[in-house]
């Protein structure tokens, strides 16, 4: 009979992880669809009873999103505007039912190219806190995600939190998702932005595209090009040349590769235009 562990303490969870291979289970919204069985297969480490892993807390140098924090928790959390993009993403993950169960950390661990969490968290310069019975390490998200459905986790390790540095608290975040229907839809392409503006000019733009490469990716060339540019001008500066080179989309039933690049470029343009419009509104 397979084992099912549901500890309430993190230390206990780490001991279980050290003892034998287990599947970490959070919201289970990716785990169950992967099986036709009536129960989760194999040995399970259920982390949802560990209170310390649930919720978003402001710490000295960062915000910590605990590994058992659901998308609904993100939506209900009191967070600065820089997290607005993540909140928009949270609202679009599947459905209310999925948001009530699914976790942000689980989303990253699944590492679907179309995962809605990664682009915003990349723009927030997030890192992933990984622990095992032997210690703790912090991995930048861009290194944690190593490929489609591949993450930088060793045997005996689990994700305990997602850390967003205090420095990323500046500016405002935004997010756009394109799918073939409204609810319960896997992204064809998505764009995330975090923009810090001073005196009407962009001080820092953190931009990312998802679903257009094995892992979501930042857009360094465009970010550089936008530094110092008036926010109102930013959208007009977005060109295919600045977006396409870092993408490597695939053709699938949801859209062909060429379309994806074009859509991603257009989404980024719109996202910047929306940021500018919102700022104008706020100023008015």
């Amino acid at each position, binding site marked *: 009979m397979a084992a099912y562990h549901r500890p309430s303490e993190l230390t206990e969870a780490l001991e279980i992880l050290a003892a034998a291979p287990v599947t970490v289970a959070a919201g289970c919204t990716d785990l169950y669809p992967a099986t036709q069985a009536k129960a989760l297969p194999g040995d399970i480490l259920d982390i949802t009873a560990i209170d310390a892993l649930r919720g978003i807390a402001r710490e000295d140098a960062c915000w910590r999103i605990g590994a058992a924090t659901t998308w609904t928790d993100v939506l209900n959390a009191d967070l600065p505007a820089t997290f607005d993009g993540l909140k928009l993403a949270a609202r679009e993950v599947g459905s209310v039912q999925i948001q009530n169960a699914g976790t942000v950390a689980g989303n990253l661990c699944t590492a679907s190219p179309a995962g809605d969490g990664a682009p915003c968290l990349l723009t927030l310069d997030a890192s992933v806190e990984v622990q095992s019975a032997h210690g703790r390490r912090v991995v930048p998200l861009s290194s944690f995600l190593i490929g489609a459905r591949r993450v930088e986790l060793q045997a005996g390790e689990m994700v305990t939190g997602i850390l967003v540095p205090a420095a990323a608290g500046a500016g405002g975040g935004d997010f756009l998702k394109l799918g073939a229907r409204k609810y319960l839809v896997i992204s064809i392409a998505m764009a995330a932005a975090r923009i810090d503006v001073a005196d009407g000019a962009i001080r820092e733009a953190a931009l990312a595209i998802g679903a257009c490469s094995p892992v979501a990716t930042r857009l360094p060339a465009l970010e550089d090009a936008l530094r110092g540019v008036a926010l109102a001008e930013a959208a007009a500066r977005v060109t295919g040349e600045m977006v396409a080179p870092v993408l490597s989309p695939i053709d699938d039933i949801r*859209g062909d590769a060429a379309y994806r690049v074009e859509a991603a470029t257009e989404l980024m343009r719109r996202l910047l235009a929306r940021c500018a419009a919102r700022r104008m509104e706020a100023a008015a």
Partner: protein
Amino acid sequence: MNRPFGKCQMRVNGAETPFAAAPGRRLSEVLREDLGLTGTKVGCDAGDCGACTVLLDGAAVCACLTPSVRADGAEVVTVEGLGALVPRLQRSFLRHGAAQCGICTPGMLVAAAGLLRGTPAPDRAEVEEALGGVLCRCTGYAKIVDAVCDSAFEADPGEASPGPAAGAAVGARLERLDGGPKVTGAEMYGADHLPEGALEVRAIRSPHHAARFALGDVAAWAAAAPAPVHVFTAADIPGENLFGTIPVFVDQPALAEAHVRQRGEAVAIVVGETAALDALDFAAFPVTWQPEEAVTDLSAPLPDLHAGRPGNELIRGVVRCGDAIMALAGAAHVAEVTVDTAYVEHAYIEPEAGTAWIDGDTLVIRACTQAPVMDRDETAKVLGLPAERVRVIPAATGGGFGAKLDLSLQPLIGLAALKTGRPCRMVYSRAESMASTTKRHPARMTGRIGCDTAGRVTGMTFDGDFNTGAYASWGPTVAVRVPVHASGPYRMEHYHAVARAMHTNGPAAGAFRGFGVPQAALVQETLFDDLARAAGIDRLEFRLRNALVDGDRTVCGQRPGGIGIRDCLVALSVAWNRALAEAAAFNEAQGVVRRGVGVASCWYGCGNTGLPNPSTVRVGITAAGRLVLHQGAMDIGQGANTVVAQLCADALGLPVGQVSLVDGDTAKTPDCGKTSASRQTYVTGKAAMLAGRALRGTILAMSNMGEDAALSLEGDVLRVHDGRGSRDIRLADLPVDAHGYVLAAEETYDPPTVGLDADGQGEPYAVYGYGAQMAEVEVDTALGTVKVRRMTAAHDLGRVVNPLLAEGQVEGGIAQGLGMALMEEYVPGRTENLHDYLIPTFGDMPEIRSIFVEKPDPEGPMGVKGLGEHVLIPTAPAILNAIRHATGARITRLPALPHRVLAAIRAAR
């Protein structure tokens, strides 16, 4: 902490409930199978359909994605507990007609209850957001949103409305007579019935599109199982191992023998206790596959799949009148198009499920179905039993739309029950359902239409290949129906249409709302837009000029009566002009988003094409004064139980509220044929009307009263009265007949048709229905996305028996048409789930306005025409025409996914 099983307790619907289950067992399984709370439905086991939604400590979650251990110590609310929580919500669902088949209803209600707790009077946007995770394939969602929004204002559940008086049922906005159990969770679908001691049946299916296979030592595999299981294969089938829908084309084995022609084909069944099956390693089942080269679309030829069908042509249908080639040569304007459509999945939320058991010397099958008598006869044949030794009790059916006309699991559970002597249950997984059951035919169609300078159509040619997949199913019906209907409801003196049903290794394509006509309408209706443009005539006006009117001949040479297409088109004209003006004003801004308006028509013959399809209805009154209607037309959500009763009650002259229904149990109810071809309201409705009238005649004769006398049934006294006097019939004094009635009538009705000749000339249908829909869309010209803003649908029903249910058909049909137009594409082996196969959600539906035209049909009961399939036919072409109007993009491949729309916009520039 490895929690021992059996120490858990949850508070379910207010009651402390201990349960013993593996901690990682899906909560949906614990609720349904272990606790018997079958109101919670399972449509996918993957979070995609939301049918399993429950409240866990107040939050809506998918029970299929919740480890049961998380319910330990928690508060769980299922649909069974809502009566205490939100009784007005359930009432509101009934009153608004928000439940059709009802399989999604528990999930909808629970999700709504979750919302209403914090937001007692939500707006539409809030409702859509909260319920967006629950799919409905029947309703088009509008009535569900209405029901939730209005629930706060619903009267107290105690106050039942009196219902229409005698003679006033037809035309009344009556809520469904069978709705109650759908909103309480009590309705019993195929998977909800688990007889004591039942074994479970699972199938071993082909992972290949085509293969030869050899079974290994099956007995040894079964013997090595941790607990006893049985394996049955084709060799165990006692009868003829072939089933089908049309006698001369029967070609599908219940269990394949040595050769599979499509993915998902069953080669064996494994039968045993559920726990025994759960412990088995199905991957180790001894079968060796020799995959063969397979082609699932029409792109390449493949070796003949069936003997006697050279070139893989199953059948071709032809309709020819006049000289189309000559007419096109002489036309002032000619337009041509080739359109490709995709496999479309029915995507009912209830995967196939049912139970079989032995009762004396009778095999009883209780499963979802659209055709109980066909199921009985075909199953009996496969199992080598005389038909009278098989009884089919229809389970509540959670949507069908055509695919549940064919046998699926009936022969498999029947075989299992016969062989083991035990009750046997089978529940298809979503993947199994999608892989193995029928689809809408993908089509490649080319059409040419010509008109003169005044915009009068002079001729049309149509040539279509319909991918009918590996087996015949209803392919012949599609091939025959398409040429009859490809003209649309328009005058065409010179016409030549050919449709071929072609075999491939794709899934068998069968019946799906419209039998090929929705595909064919794309050709004719988009070409009409081309011609109207070429002739410089408004597109609605162009259709009006060509619309059939009484006295005109159809392309089959028939002169139907009561043709209502002009009336439908005229009914759109105010909205049409408004929409055109609005779109033009909007587009003046020259923005990225452009608006467009499109229109398309439909016509559709009700019933079998030139072939008999009778229905027989029995109505009786018992000695105790119960009025009983044996209503054998399967109600799969469309409302036959209600409208057939309305027609019967009015013909009889008693209030419809007094009618008790007996379903299509083949042991109790005469055959009403299949629920397909939009025939039930017309054909069974007519039989019901005749039966009601006959019973009335008997009663009037007995009491010596005139035709205008009124009836009332009070206890066991039937009172007949008119202005002059009154007579009481004491029912208890009358003799009881073989069926248990003291007064009864049984009537059969079969539509009068004339079979088609070699040129497709004849009178294929006795009744047609008509309609026209207008789509208003918004196209994002940079992303290629399409948002349908509004649909205005005018349908001629002859006589509206029940406006509430008719609106439900329109809204649901439009949802399916919209899905077909914009997102639905089944790719065998790749989209066998509801996250890769997309159907419309709450957020994708436009505002829908239904306009009902009543141009009585001379043949239909009280003027009635059919509606069920008509509603889907114009939707996709109207949307494509609107996209074209907005952007100039001519979409010739469905679905119009964003990348295809964008490419078409580019091509048009």
